[in-house]
């Protein structure tokens, strides 16, 4: 498999011209990503256009808990919720890509006329792919290519297409993903340029990137504790961890011994160098840590 050509970006770094893709594993992940996308748009006086049949106050990331007054933003025209029927359904209720394209074009032009410096567009396509109707993947692919063509050259528009990753087979999901240039994920929980910690959702856990040593043990321990609150098995994706010190391994093992009986802390995709050090110390001396999956090819979302 070739190195993927798409850019991976935390939602906070999505920029005009980005045709983004979010294959979410559940509402928790979707709400974190899309909630951030919506909220950051509203707070930075960009326009947010959301195609959905849900009422505005049910959108991810809004409401009093987040300090977002939905009604005020709606009245001011900064938040626009468009129903599917108005955005992209033909008279018989079928999905009409051309209509979706028209809607996007119209909304972008309008935002420009209204003086917004940027417009954020998002919709969840999962409903199109779920029963009762058969998933019309060819139609979706055609639509997404055209959306990409419309958004990419734009200096104003940015879009995130949401898909429930369980709505499609892995190959279909990969095909649809490949019509996007930007893979969007949650903002990192921590990033100081040396160590980056990113929440992962399927499996639940954290992805560590960079180097972990004593200077960053406490922030790591804090994140580890937070992600371990629910009764779920925690995985650490270490594919991009270039260095971990002995204290870091010790910290993981100590954390694992505090987990419910028999519940291990799973270390996925260990880099060979790091695994070599663990093997030298001995897995049996790090009780509670187990070796998880191995990734043979770069696959940023673990789809294939």
């Amino acid at each position: 498999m070739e190195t993927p050509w798409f850019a991976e970006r935390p939602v906070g770094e999505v920029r005009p011209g980005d045709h983004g893709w979010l294959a979410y594993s559940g509402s928790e992940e979707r709400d974190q990503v899309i909630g951030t996308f919506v909220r950051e748009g509203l707070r930075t006086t960009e326009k947010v256009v959301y195609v959905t049949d849900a009422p505005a106050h049910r959108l991810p990331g809004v409401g009093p808990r987040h300090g977002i007054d939905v009604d005020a933003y709606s009245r001011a025209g900064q938040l626009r919720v468009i129903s599917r029927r108005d955005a992209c359904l033909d008279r018989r209720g079928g999905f009409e890509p051309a209509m979706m394209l028209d809607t996007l074009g119209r909304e972008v032009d309008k935002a420009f006329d209204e003086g917004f410096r940027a417009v954020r567009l998002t919709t969840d396509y999962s409903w199109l792919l779920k029963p009762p109707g058969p998933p019309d993947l060819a139609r979706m692919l055609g639509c997404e290519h055209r959306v990409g063509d419309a958004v990419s050259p734009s200096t104003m528009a940015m879009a995130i297409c949401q898909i429930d990753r369980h709505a499609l087979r892995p190959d279909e999901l990969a095909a649809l993903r490949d019509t996007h240039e930007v893979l969007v994920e949650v903002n990192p929980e921590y990033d100081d340029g040396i160590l980056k910690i990113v929440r992962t959702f399927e499996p639940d856990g954290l992805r560590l990137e960079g180097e972990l040593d004593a200077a960053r043990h406490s922030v790591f321990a804090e994140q580890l504790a937070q992600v371990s609150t629910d009764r779920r098995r925690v995985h650490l994706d270490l594919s991009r961890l270039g260095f971990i010190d002995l204290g870091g391994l010790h910290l993981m093992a100590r954390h694992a011994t505090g987990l419910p009986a028999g519940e291990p802390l799973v270390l996925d995709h260990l880099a060979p160098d790091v695994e070599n050090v663990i093997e030298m110390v001995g897995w049996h001396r790090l009780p509670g840590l187990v070796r998880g999956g191995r990734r043979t090819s770069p696959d940023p979302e673990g789809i294939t």
Partner: protein
Amino acid sequence: MKNDLGRAAAGGLGLMSPPVGTVGDTMITSSPGNVVHTSFTHRLLPYDGADRFLDGALPFLADGLAAGDRVVAVCGTGQEMLLRDALGPADAGVEFQEPRDWYRHPARTLADCLSAADDATGRGSRLRVLGEPAWTSRTPPEVVEWQRIEAVLNVAFRDTGAALMCPYSTSLPAGIVAAARKTHPETVRGGQAVPNPGFVDPWSYCAQCDREPLPAPPPDADELRLDKADLYWLRAYVTEYARQTALPDEDLQRLLVAVTEVVTNAMRHGEPPIVLRMWTEPGTAPALVCEVADEGRWAPGTGYGLIPPRPGSTAFGSRFGLWAVRLLCAAVQIRTGEGGSTVRLRLALPGAAGAGPRTESEGFRALGFQNPPSGVR
């Protein structure tokens, strides 16, 4: 069943040793006629030929087979042949191991052997090892580290119930035999274990090993003063230095983990200034040497990371790190005192000439043969 087989075979050969009532050796009777030693033993078996070797080694192995122990014999071809001949069919119950595999690395061998002892205990059994560390063809610093292991294992194995017997050829250099008398609580003479009056407390022995100051770093050693340095940059610096040496890529990560650990310790417990020095040493055991020095002095009784943490224990203790550093490096040398503290990490560079167990012909000579006997594999 193995138990019966071992006892029958050993008994048939008349190899059952007389009960050895010795200092520190508790004996309990678990079932009629089946005597089990429950406490740890570490015995020296000096020998000057095949007869004395067998006088001590054979009852040791046979007792183990009779008791259902896990019985391991680490020895060269000549000794293996002698033992197999003497054991007869019972030899199938003994695991023969190559010294070059068993005595690969001081800290790792100690850790692996301790794990094996714990595993045996977990199965309601006992580990019994007959092993002669390969002394010749090691460099003097390597010899010191193996001698240190002989001392420290008296502490590490204390609660395991393992039985260790170390044959020492009297043809070995006098210093090696003399050191062995300090590191073994008991000596075997004519099949009898007797207390060894020369035995020295293991920690005192280690202190003696470290009385000599380390040789001064070469004048052209690379020197870096660490002032609150982010260890990320330190690793980049060490990586750059190591890349200019012949250090294999797979060892670089080990070096980085080891240096990070030692510097982290110095920053936590030591006194500034902390200085990092690196150099390479040519010779028979070429090495990349990385030294971390500070002005502090270690608290007594720290153990210097010599005792492996026990598997399954939830608290590794604060010295887990330093112990692991020993596994990651070819050797770790520590000096601490009035003049500050120094930890020197050595990583082997390619081209090391014959570091390892003695050659077969050396082994035969130790047993009293001038030439390898015929029929040796």
